[in-house]
C-alpha cells in the first residue's frame, strides 16, 4: 500500500513541504485505488446530473463551477483529496 505521506513527498519534491511548493499531482489508473485504500477523499467535479447517473463509490459531487470555499468546507484540507471528471479532456 502506498502511504499518503510518501505520495505527498513525491508530489512536492524531496525535502520540501512548504505550502507554496504544493501542487496537484496527476495520477494514473494504477494509483487511485491504493490512495483510496489509504483514506483519500474523492470528489467528482462534473455537473450533478452526470454524478447522479454514475459515479465512483464514495465520491462526493462538487461541480467545478461551484467549487467555492463554502462548498469544500466539508473536506479535510490536510488529508489527500482526489478529483476526477469524465476523461482526459
Amino acid at each position, binding site marked *: 500500500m502506498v502511504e*499518503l505521506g510518501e*505520495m*505527498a513527498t513525491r*508530489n512536492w519534491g524531496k525535502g520540501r513541504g512548504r*505550502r507554496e511548493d*504544493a*501542487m*496537484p*499531482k*496527476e*495520477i*494514473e*489508473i494504477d*494509483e*487511485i*485505488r491504493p*490512495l483510496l485504500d489509504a483514506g*483519500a477523499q474523492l*470528489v*467528482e*467535479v*462534473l455537473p450533478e446530473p452526470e*454524478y*447522479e*447517473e*454514475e*459515479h*465512483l*463509490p*464514495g*465520491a462526493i459531487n*462538487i461541480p*467545478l463551477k461551484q*467549487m467555492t*470555499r463554502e462548498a*469544500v468546507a466539508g*473536506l479535510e*484540507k*490536510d*488529508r*489527500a*483529496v*482526489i*478529483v*476526477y*471528471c*469524465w*476523461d*482526459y*479532456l
Partner: protein
Amino acid sequence: MSPRAAWRLERLGFTQVYDFVPGKMAWLAMGWPREGTAAAVPNAGEVARRGTPTCALDDRIGDVRETLLAVGRHVCIVVNAAGIVEGRLRGRALEETPEATAEEAMELGPTTIRPNERLEPLVERMRKRGVRTIIVSDLKGQLVGILYREDAERALEAARG
C-alpha cells in the same frame, strides 16, 4: 476539467491534491464498482461469466483440449504473461494436432468489449449479427469474462421488472 479543479483546491488550501486524469471513463472501463442511478441496470462486466478457462501462448493444444474436457467447456481464451487477451480457441482451432501451440492455432485478436458497455444496445448488436457470446476485457486488455447473450437478455428483463 479536473486539472482546473485540482488547482482550485490547491488554492483553497488543500495540501495533498491528486488529479485522477483518466477519469470516470477509465474507472468504469476497468469494471470496478460504481454507484448512481445507472447502476440499477447491470452492465456487460457485471453480467459476464467469470472463470473462463485460459491458457498461455505456448501451451499445447492437446493439453488445452484435455483441460477443457475435464471442466466441460468448449472455449479457451489465450492470454500472455501479463494476462492480456491475445486470442481464442474454440471449434476447429481445438482440432489442431496436439503438438501445435495455442498461439499457432488460436483465432488472433478476437473482438472484445469493455465491462462498462451498456447491455441494451449491445444485445441489439449481438442479435443482428447472430453473436451468442463476446469476450469482456478491461481497459488494459485483461480478461474479465465472457458475456452470454442469453444472460444479458435475462438481466435486462429483470431490470425492467
